[in-house]
Each structure stands twice: as C-alpha cells, then as structure tokens.
C-alpha cells in the first residue's frame, strides 16, 4: 500500500458528489452514468468523469459491458478509505487521553488530594 495510492483514494472520497454517487450505488447495488445523473444535480458527463476517478482508485468496478456500463462499489476498498478517515479521529482520541494522563499526574504530584493525604497517615 503506497502513500500515493492513499492520497488518490482520499481525493476520490473527498468530493461530495462522488460520495453521493457511492451512497446511491451502495443503496441500489449497481448504476450507470445515466441512472446516477438522473438522481443528482449534475450532468451525465460529469457523473461519467467522477466514475472514471472512482474506478481508477478501485472504489467502483464496471460489472457489465452492455450499451452502457453498470458500476458496482468495491466494498473492501471503500472500507479502507473509511478506516483512514476514522484514523484521524482515533489518533486525536489517544493523544487527548495522554494529555489527560500527563496533566492529572502533574496535578496529583503538585497538590495531593485530601484522600491521598489520609492514605499516607
């Protein structure tokens, strides 16, 4: 897994239109540029371009080659993108826990509570 691929993956899901397209594809199972554009405030051409971006990073795959290609979401790749999103929040959660622990340790050493004093006597 290279960093460059991750950047592209991030860009792909960072766009609100592409995320709505993913939502629709997940809800419907499959979709085409025409069917997606009918439900979004963008042109079929714009949807087709977004599908190219999503296809390139592996978030969607063409599942039929008829008159118009049907696309389906790649669940595993989507899970990876979502996990990266969640990592940012998780990283701050663990940092905040460390901040809390360090600050409370300092406070505790500087001014032990009455309960602590009683324990020592």
């Amino acid at each position, binding site marked *: 897994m290279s960093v460059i691929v991750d950047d592209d993956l991030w860009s792909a899901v960072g766009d609100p239109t592409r995320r709505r397209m993913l939502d629709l594809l997940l809800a419907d199972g499959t979709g085409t540029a025409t069917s997606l554009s009918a439900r979004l405030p963008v042109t079929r051409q714009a949807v087709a371009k977004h599908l190219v971006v999503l296809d390139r990073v592996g978030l969607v795959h063409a599942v039929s080659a008829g008159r118009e290609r049907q696309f389906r979401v790649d669940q595993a790749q989507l899970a990876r993108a979502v996990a990266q999103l969640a*990592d940012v929040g998780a990283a701050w959660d663990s940092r905040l826990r460390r901040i809390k622990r360090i600050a409370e*340790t300092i406070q505790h*050493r500087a001014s032990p509570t009455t309960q602590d004093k009683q324990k020592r006597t």
Partner: protein
Amino acid sequence: MEYGTIERTIHIDASPEVVFDVVSSPAHLREWWPDEAEFSPVPGAPGRIGFDQGDKVIAWEQFTVVDAKPNRLFSFRWTHTEGTVAAPDNSYLVTFELEPAGEGTLLRLTESGFRERGWAEAKIATEYASHVTGWDFFLPRLAPYAATIGAVR
C-alpha cells in the same frame, strides 16, 4: 475541495494552568505526540515537529503557533511546506480551548483543514500507526515520565 473538522471535548482533573502547560510546551508535546518538537509559543514564529522513523531518520512537519493565551487558548498550524507562511489553504489548524470546570479543566480540541491536501494525518497514522497511536507504545513511556515529574517537584 472539502473542509473537514474534528472536534473533541475531554474533562481533565487538573487546573487550566497545568493543562495549558501540557498542551503548549515543546517538552510536554513530545510526551503525547511527536518525538521531536522545536517551537516557541510566539504567534507566527516558525517551528517544527518530528516523527522518528528509525535509523536516525526524522520526518519533520512544519509547525507554527497561531495564538497563545495563557491558561485559555493554544492554537497552531502544521503540515505547511517548509519556507511558506502557514495559511488556511496549506495547513491544518489545531485549537485547544481551556475552560475551568469545578476543580479541573474542560479541554476542547478542534482540527480543521482541506482534506484534499492528502490528509497528512491519515498518512502519518497509516505509516506510524503501530508506534504512535497505541497505548502499548505509550504506557511504558508514561511511568518513567511521571516519576521524572515527581522528582523535580
């Protein structure tokens, strides 16, 4: 471009003075986030934080203090390119707001920036995740650190 924000609030049983010191001093920062931290708490002054990648290689990220109001607020920007002035379009803004709550402090964190920048945070989390985010790594560090603080007080 999409603007993303993370928000967290946590209660800490320590005074705002202590909490401010922990979130804003380079020495303490090294204990809860980067392996190296070089900055002065002066708005606009260029600084940097570093992440140890083994073999004596440090990955540096630029770090500029935006605002520092003792015991109330500390904010900084990071990940802008070296030599550039930190701005909304080239860096992430992290803000710590402190509020007295009983005998402790309510600490509110926000981080915001354009996710299309590559979400440097996610990259760092991915690359150094096993070292940087886990308690497995930090718990052993904390005990000696707590002992050090006890010794100087």
